[in-house]
């Protein structure tokens, strides 16, 4: 009796959950397919980065054998709460590999940073509205 009870309870739960799970999987598959390539590749970066463009530009502009650093200043009002210095650094380190992150790197990913801390560095790209820029120090 105990065995039949246990199996019966599990079957009832299965009848309830399986169709939902199957339908959820299909719905999520369609949602994933509907993303554009940049959204899909950035993934969690869409929640962390103030704008996708800095990741796209950084990946395109910084050669794979060069290094970068992440400099984060006062967050802008338009930024998400997840745009913290740690998150931004960790995300860009993940996203830009094999480019390495070093404090004295020639490329600076500036998130509303204090540019006076990088004398001689010139912007190669920027989004002034979000306070984002990619700076390059002379080698």
């Amino acid at each position, binding site marked *: 009796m105990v065995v039949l009870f246990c199996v019966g309870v599990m079957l009832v739960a299965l009848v309830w959950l399986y169709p939902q799970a199957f339908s959820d999987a*299909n719905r999520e*598959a*369609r949602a994933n*397919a509907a993303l*554009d*390539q*940049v959204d*899909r*590749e950035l993934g969690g970066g869409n929640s962390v980065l103030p704008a996708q*463009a800095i990741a*796209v*530009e950084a*990946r*395109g*502009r910084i*050669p794979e054998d060069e290094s970068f650093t992440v400099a984060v200043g006062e967050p802008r009002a338009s930024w998400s709460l997840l745009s913290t210095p740690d998150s931004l650094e960790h995300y860009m380190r993940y996203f830009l590999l094999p480019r390495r992150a070093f404090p004295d790197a020639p490329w600076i990913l500036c998130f509303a940073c204090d540019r006076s801390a990088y004398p001689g560095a010139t912007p190669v790209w920027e989004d002034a509205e979000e306070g984002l820029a990619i700076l390059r120090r002379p080698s």
Partner: protein
Amino acid sequence: MSPHRLRLAAAAIVVVPLVGYPLVVAADGARSPTADDCVHVAPEGSTEALDLVFGRRDTWAEADELLERVRGVGYVDAEARPDGCWRWKVLYDGIESYEQGAESRAEARGAGLEAELELEPPG
């Protein structure tokens, strides 16, 4: 039920949904993404906003080289931009009509550049 029919029934229970489901969802058309997803060649006579695209490269540095060449030919306002599929495209966005674009395309090709009229991406 005979053993043979029992085995057939078991095989059908397994095979029919496992084969049928992929066939049904294939109708969804969720293809694997490719870099060409961001290439939208303008149909002839298009009245949409158009760009004259001179090519795509995998890195900004390679796109910049092409950009220098394109500007050297005379397209001084050409730019290099991300294309939305992780490549960089070199383009001129001053096209105002399909006819103008087609002429520019012909000139660019005559100057040895690859050129194609594409629909301007939204946003």
